[in-house]
């Protein structure tokens, strides 16, 4: 079963991602902060990461920066953020992340993107 790490601080959004991914027969893992995700990423590897940008304390980009600096491998990542800021999209590209979805997400589109990412 493919392991997918979700980094999302909003309880309901987390539930939505989790339920959909579980229903699609993936193994979603919940983390509510970048710090929590960082601890897991140090120990385990994941097939995919769904990453929110605006998080308490450390942001999604801070997490990517920290992982890169400490040479911890970054899994394939889909950034899911409520802010559709163009600067953020550019920033994501710096970490070779070209998949950026804007909340509110379209469920069907989201499932399709996850499938594509995992089949590569």
């Amino acid at each position, binding site marked *: 079963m493919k392991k997918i790490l979700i980094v999302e601080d909003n309880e309901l959004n987390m539930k*939505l991602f989790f*339920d959909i991914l579980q229903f699609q027969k993936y193994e979603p893992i919940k983390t509510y902060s970048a710090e929590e995700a960082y601890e897991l990423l140090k120990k385990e590897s994941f097939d995919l990461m769904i990453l929110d940008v605006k998080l308490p304390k450390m942001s999604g980009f801070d997490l990517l920066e920290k992982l890169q600096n400490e040479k911890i491998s970054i899994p394939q990542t889909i950034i899911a953020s*409520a802010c559709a800021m163009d600067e953020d999209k550019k920033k994501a590209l710096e970490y070779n992340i070209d998949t950026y979805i804007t909340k509110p997400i379209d*469920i069907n589109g989201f499932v399709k993107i996850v499938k594509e990412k995992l089949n590569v």
Partner: protein
Amino acid sequence: MDILVKSLNLIDDIINNTDAKNISFYSKVLKIMSSLFNEASIGVYFCENQGFSLQGAVKNNQDFKADYAIDSTYTNKFFNSNDKVFELATKKDDFLFENTLFSKLAIKESVFGFCVLSINEKITQDIKTSFGALVDILSYKIKDYELNEVFKIQLKALQEAIIEKENAYEVIKKQHKKLQELDKTKNLFLANISHELRTPLNAIIGFSQALDNQIFGPLNEKQAEYIKDIQISSLHLLGMINEILDISKIEAHAMKFNPSEIDIDMVIKEVINILQPLYDNKNIQIEYNSEFCGKIMADYQKIQQILYNLLSNAIKFTGKGGKIYINSFTENKNYILKIKDTGIGIEKKNQTKIFKKFVHLNNLCDKTQNSTGLGLTITKELVKLHNGKITLESELNKGSEFTMEFKKIVV
């Protein structure tokens, strides 16, 4: 010395006596005049409401406090005569000396007072001429002095007005700065609030979509209908939140422009597809006529939004069974897009208004469909970002046609 020559010298003195002020001014001039004679008294009277008032008097070259009013029998005789200088036969008791001369203080025909000279010497023609000339000069001096005073008052008023204006300008400048800051705060607030509003919407739209897909089990007919209603309303809300976010970006000049080569034909078809539920619902036909299938240099998302805004407006304001035409073509490297509807149209007087913020035209307002009133403002700004312009041709009850012309964006 001859009195004419003496008085000629005096004229110089009087003319140069420019810094004279009030009572001392008359006194100075009168002293100068009285120096012509061994013994003399001179008084200056000004016309007042009904009669005359003494403004200054000199006796034997000294300031003289005369407090008597001149008998009106003398002044009547004098004012009834046309003489420039009038010699009066007087009783010695009434004046200080034996012989008395009157002369009008006047500028041209306008008399404003008179001057009285009383001396012991016999009055000669030379004395009359000299006195007449001196009183004339005195007249001009007095008027000059008065005008000077008026001028000074007006100058002061002007200076005060200027200062007042400058102060007002400073206040306006300060207020303007304050408003600009407030505007910034407002835009930041709007950007933040719309971001915050999207987060719970994500859950609403996501969960209702999950139910709609029936992935967790079947729904009955009513449940399916309600879920659809929730989805439509949340998409509507999302659209409005996006508009607020857009307008705050536009106003903060933070709207980014990311051009790339895009297949415009594909974008138009995409938007037509997205809107299908809306126009099918009203049985409206969209006729898309594309003469151009190449690529243009444009911001994909923004072109999509322009099309979405204009087409959804066209659908909104076109009656059931109506038609909408889309024409896409090029003209010397310029790309032109026309969207025409057969809707209710816009009156001439309202045609420039509709691009302004928060405008809802009463006759156009579809009561069942609320909006932010920002759609066309945003559309115009997005067209502007592409260095293009948008124009409108419309006739009430016949329809509207929006034409966009994008300069030199054809690849």
